C-alpha cells in the first residue's frame, strides 16, 4: 500500500505537487493519470525517495522508502528505461542491482527469462531498442520480487505483443495481491489495464475512484438503437429523450432513457429492434472533461 | 498516393523487406502495422529515399522521392522527433528547413501556431520534452503544406490532450484529400485513428484492407442479448440454428447470427429485449491472430 498525505513539492514559486493525498491499495492495478506537468513524475520520485517533499509525507506500508534496508525487495520501480549505463551489459546491470540488495544471483537469469531478454543478456544496453530497454527496466523492477510496483509509461516503445504481455503481467501481479501503480498518457490502454484511478492536475488531486465510476461520473451514457421502424420509435421516445442520428449508419442515439426501458417500449408497440446497445463513455472523454482546466500546452 | 511495387531490402542475408506491394490512397488515414522487426521503419525510410531498395520501387504520386523537385512540398515526414540539433531554437530549425525548399518564412510561424509551440519557438530544442519535440517534428512535416504525410509513432510522448489533438489533426489532413500514412504499435489508438490498414510481418504484406474488414475477418462476431424472457428466447434462437452461450450476469452470447436476425426472432415471438448489442473484436485481437508467428521477442506470459 502506498499512502500520500498532504504531499507538497515546491520549486521556488512553482507548486509541482500541492497538498496531494491518496492511497494506492494492494490487489489492484491503479492508474495514475494527469496532463503533462500535472506532477506525476515528481510524485513518483518522492514515493521513491529520489526527491524530498517540501511538505507532507508519502509512505509505503507505513515506512518511507529510504527506511527500507533492502528496498528492491519491497518496491520495484520502472521510471525511465534509459537509466542504464550504455556500455554495461543487461546482465551486469541486473547483477549489481541484485548484489546491492542481497538478492541471489540466480534471480538475474530468472527475470531476464521472464521479460524475454535471455538471449541478449550479454549485450550492452546502449545498443538496445526502446522496447528492449523497457523490458530490461521491467526486469530490474521485478528483481526483488517486490510487493509494490511502480511503472511510469511501461508500454513506451513496446510492440503490440509486448503491450499485451505487460498488461496481462500487471493484472497477474495485482492478482497475486501486490500493489501496482502505473502512470500513463495512453488512456485507451489504461482503460483496459487499471481498475482504480488516481487523477491529478496542476499538482492537486482531481479524482480517486474506480475506473468504471470515473467514466460514468464524467460522461453521459447513451443507447444506440437500430430498427426497421425507426421513425415510429423516434416519435414515441421523443417525449422523454434527446435523440440524434449516427452519421454513418443512421442508427438512433438516445440520451436519457436506459436500454431496458427502450426495449419494453418497443415490445409494447410491437416495434422490431435490430440493435439496442448501451454505449458507455470512454476514459478519454471522461479525462478530457475533468482535466480541461489543467492542461499546459494547448494546440490550436 | 504512395505505391510500393515489389519493394525488397536485404542486409547481407537478412531480408528486411520482401517483395512488398501496397497502395496508400489519399483522403483517408492509413495505419501501417507490424510487430517489431517487421520492416516498417525500413519501408518508411525507402519511401523517403533514405535507404535504397535492393529491388522494386516505391513511388510518391508516381515519382521516386529523389526525383521530387521540392520534396518537402510533396511529402512531410515525422520519423524521429530527436533529429533536431539540441542547441538550435525551434524556430531556427524550421527556418533552415523552409529555406532549403524555398518556402516563405511566414510559413514557419504558421506551423508553429498550428502545433501550439509559438510561445517556446525561441527556446533550444534540446530542452524540449518528448511531447514538445514531437510537436516540433510535426511542425516540420507540415512546413511545405505537403500532399503526402508520413508519421512514425506520432503519439509517442504526447499527453492525453496531445493524443486527441494529433488524432483529430491527422483525420482533418486526410479529410482535406491528403495521403496520411501512420505507423504505430498502439493498436487501441490506431483503431480510433486509421480507417485503412496496411499490415506487414517479416517484411511481407499480411493484409491491406479497411480497419473494420480487418477486424471482422479475424475475430468472430457475436451478439450480446439481455431480456427478461431469455428462457423463451434462447430455445427459439437455437431452433434457428444459431449458437447460444450463457454470458456474464445472465445475458446470452449468440454467434452465427446478426443482431438484425435476433431482433426479428424476438419481435415475431413477442419477446421483450433489454439489450441487443453486436460485439466486435478489437483490432488488437485481430492483429495478434494474424501476426502470431511473425513476432521477434517472445516474453513468457505464463511466468
Amino acid at each position, binding site marked *: 500500500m502506498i499512502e500520500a498525505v498532504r504531499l507538497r513539492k515546491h520549486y521556488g514559486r512553482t507548486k509541482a505537487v500541492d497538498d496531494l493525498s491518496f492511497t494506492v491499495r494492494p490487489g489492484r492495478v491503479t492508474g495514475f493519470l494527469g496532463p503533462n506537468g500535472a506532477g506525476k513524475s515528481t510524485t513518483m*520520485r518522492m514515493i521513491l*525517495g529520489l526527491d*524530498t517533499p517540501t511538505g507532507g509525507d508519502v509512505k509505503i506500508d507505513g515506512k518511507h522508502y529510504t527506511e527500507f534496508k533492502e528496498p528492491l525487495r519491497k518496491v520495484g520501480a520502472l521510471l*525511465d528505461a*534509459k537509466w*542504464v*549505463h550504455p556500455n554495461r551489459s543487461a546482465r551486469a546491470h541486473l547483477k549489481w542491482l541484485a*548484489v*546491492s*540488495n542481497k538478492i541471489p544471483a540466480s534471480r538475474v537469469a530468472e527475470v531476464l527469462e521472464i521479460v524475454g531478454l535471455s538471449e541478449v543478456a550479454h549485450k550492452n544496453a546502449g545498443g538496445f531498442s526502446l522496447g528492449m530497454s523497457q523490458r530490461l527496466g521491467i526486469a530490474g523492477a521485478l528483481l526483488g520480487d517486490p510487493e509494490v510496483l511502480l511503472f511510469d509509461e511501461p508500454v513506451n516503445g513496446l510492440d503490440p505483443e509486448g503491450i499485451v504481455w505487460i498488461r496481462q503481467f500487471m493484472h497477474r501481479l495485482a492478482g497475486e495481491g501486490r500493489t501496482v501503480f502505473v502512470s500513463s498518457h495512453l488512456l485507451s490502454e489504461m482503460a483496459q489495464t487499471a481498475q482504480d484511478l488516481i487523477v491529478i492536475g496542476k499538482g492537486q488531486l482531481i479524482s480517486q475512484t474506480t475506473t468504471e465510476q470515473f467514466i460514468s461520473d464524467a460522461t453521459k451514457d447513451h443507447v444506440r438503437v437500430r430498427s426497421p421502424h425507426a421513425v415510429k420509435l423516434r416519435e414515441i421516445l421523443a417525449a422523454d429523450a434527446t435523440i440524434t442520428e449516427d452519421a454513418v449508419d443512421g442508427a438512433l442515439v438516445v440520451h436519457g432513457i436506459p436500454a431496458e426501458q427502450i426495449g419494453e417500449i418497443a415490445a409494447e408497440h410491437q416495434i422490431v429492434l435490430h440493435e439496442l446497445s448501451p454505449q458507455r463513455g470512454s476514459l478519454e472523454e471522461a479525462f478530457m472533461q475533468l482535466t480541461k482546466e489543467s492542461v499546459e500546452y494547448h494546440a490550436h | 498516393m504512395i505505391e510500393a511495387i515489389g519493394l525488397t531490402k536485404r542486409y547481407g542475408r537478412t531480408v528486411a523487406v520482401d517483395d512488398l506491394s501496397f497502395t496508400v490512397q489519399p483522403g483517408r488515414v492509413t495505419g501501417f502495422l507490424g510487430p517489431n522487426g517487421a520492416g516498417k521503419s525500413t519501408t518508411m525510410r525507402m519511401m523517403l529515399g533514405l535507404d535504397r531498395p535492393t529491388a522494386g520501387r516505391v513511388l510518391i504520386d508516381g515519382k521516386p522521392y529523389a526525383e521530387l523537385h521540392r520534396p518537402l512540398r510533396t511529402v512531410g515526414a515525422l520519423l524521429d522527433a530527436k533529429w533536431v540539433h539540441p542547441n538550435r531554437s525551434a524556430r531556427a530549425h524550421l527556418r533552415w528547413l523552409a529555406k532549403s525548399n524555398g518556402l516563405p518564412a511566414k510559413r514557419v510561424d504558421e506551423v508553429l501556431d498550428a502545433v501550439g509551440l509559438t510561445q517556446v519557438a525561441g527556446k533550444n530544442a534540446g530542452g524540449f520534452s518528448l511531447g514538445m519535440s514531437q510537436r516540433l517534428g510535426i511542425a516540420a512535416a507540415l512546413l511545405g503544406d505537403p500532399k503526402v504525410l508520413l508519421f512514425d509513432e506520432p503519439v509517442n510522448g504526447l499527453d492525453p490532450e496531445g493524443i486527441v489533438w494529433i488524432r483529430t489533426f491527422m483525420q482533418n489532413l486526410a479529410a482535406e484529400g491528403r495521403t496520411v500514412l501512420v505507423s504505430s504499435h498502439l493498436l487501441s489508438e490506431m483503431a480510433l485513428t486509421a480507417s485503412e490498414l496496411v499490415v506487414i510481418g517479416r517484411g511481407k504484406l499480411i493484409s491491406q484492407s479497411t480497419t473494420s474488414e480487418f477486424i471482422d475477418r479475424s475475430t468472430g462476431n457475436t451478439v450480446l442479448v439481455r431480456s427478461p424472457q431469455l428462457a423463451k428466447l434462447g430455445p427459439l434462437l437455437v431452433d434457428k440454428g444459431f449458437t447460444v452461450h450463457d454470458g456474464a450476469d445472465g445475458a446470452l452470447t449468440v454467434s452465427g447470427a446478426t443482431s438484425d436476425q435476433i431482433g426479428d426472432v424476438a419481435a415475431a415471438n413477442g419477446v421483450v429485449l433489454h439489450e441487443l448489442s453486436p460485439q466486435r473484436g478489437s483490432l488488437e485481437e485481430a492483429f495478434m491472430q494474424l501476426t502470431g508467428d511473425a513476432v521477434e521477442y517472445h516474453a513468457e506470459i505464463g511466468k
Partner: protein
Amino acid sequence: MTLLAVERIKLFSTRSPYWCSALALVLGVGLTAIIAASTDDGQLSIGVTQFGSSQLALSVVLVMAALAVTTEYRFSTIRATFLAVPNRTSALVAKTVVVAFIAGVLGEIIAFGSWGVAKLLSPASDLAINTGGEWRHVAGIGLLYGIGAVLAIAVGILVRQTAGAVAILLVWNMLLEGLIGIIPKVGTKIQAWLPFQNANNFLALPAGSDPGEGMAAGIDFKLSQWGSLAYFAGIAVALLVVALIVAKRRDA
C-alpha cells in the same frame, strides 16, 4: 562489504576504467622509458623515474575517478543506485573506497613499472631503493593516486558533468597551482598550502640529492613530508564530506 561489491561490479562492467588504466600505464611508464632511453647509461636517478607517474598518469587517474561518478549522472544510473541503496552517503562512500583503492593499486603498478623500465634500459645507473626517502618517492605514488581519486570523486559529485569536472581537475592540477607561484611575494607562500603542491612535497627526495626535487622547488613548506600528505588527504576528505552533504540534500 555488499556495497563495495556493487561498486566493483559497476566499475568493471564498463570499458572506460580499463581504457583509463591502460592509458595511465602507457603514459607513466612510457615517459620514463623515453627519458631512460635518451639519457646516457649511468646518468639516471630515482627522481627522474617518477616524472611520468606523478604528473601525466596522475591526471589520467583523476579523470578516471571523476568519470566513475559523472557517468552515473550522465546516464541517470545514479537514480537506479539511489533506488537500490537509499542511503546515499554509504553508496557514494563505497564508490569512493573502491575507486581510491583501485587508483592506489594502479599507482603502485605504474610507479614500480616505471622504476623497472628505467632499470632495464639503464642498467648502469644507481637506481637502488635504499633510503626511506627513496621508498617514499616510488611507493608513495599509490597513496597519491588514492587520495587524488577521492578528491576527483568529490569534484565529480559536486559538478555532476563530465566536461566540467575534468576541466576543473586538469586545470587545477596541471596549471592553476603552478601559476599561483608567479604572483610576486605571496605566490610561493600560498603554494605552500595548496593540495597538489603538498602532494609533490610528500614525494620530494632530500634536498640536493636529486633533480626530482624540482617538482616542488622554491616553496617553503610549513609541513613535514608526511604532514603534507596528511594535509592533501585532509583537503580531499573535507571536499568529499561537502560533496556527500550536497548529494544527500539534492533531488536525485
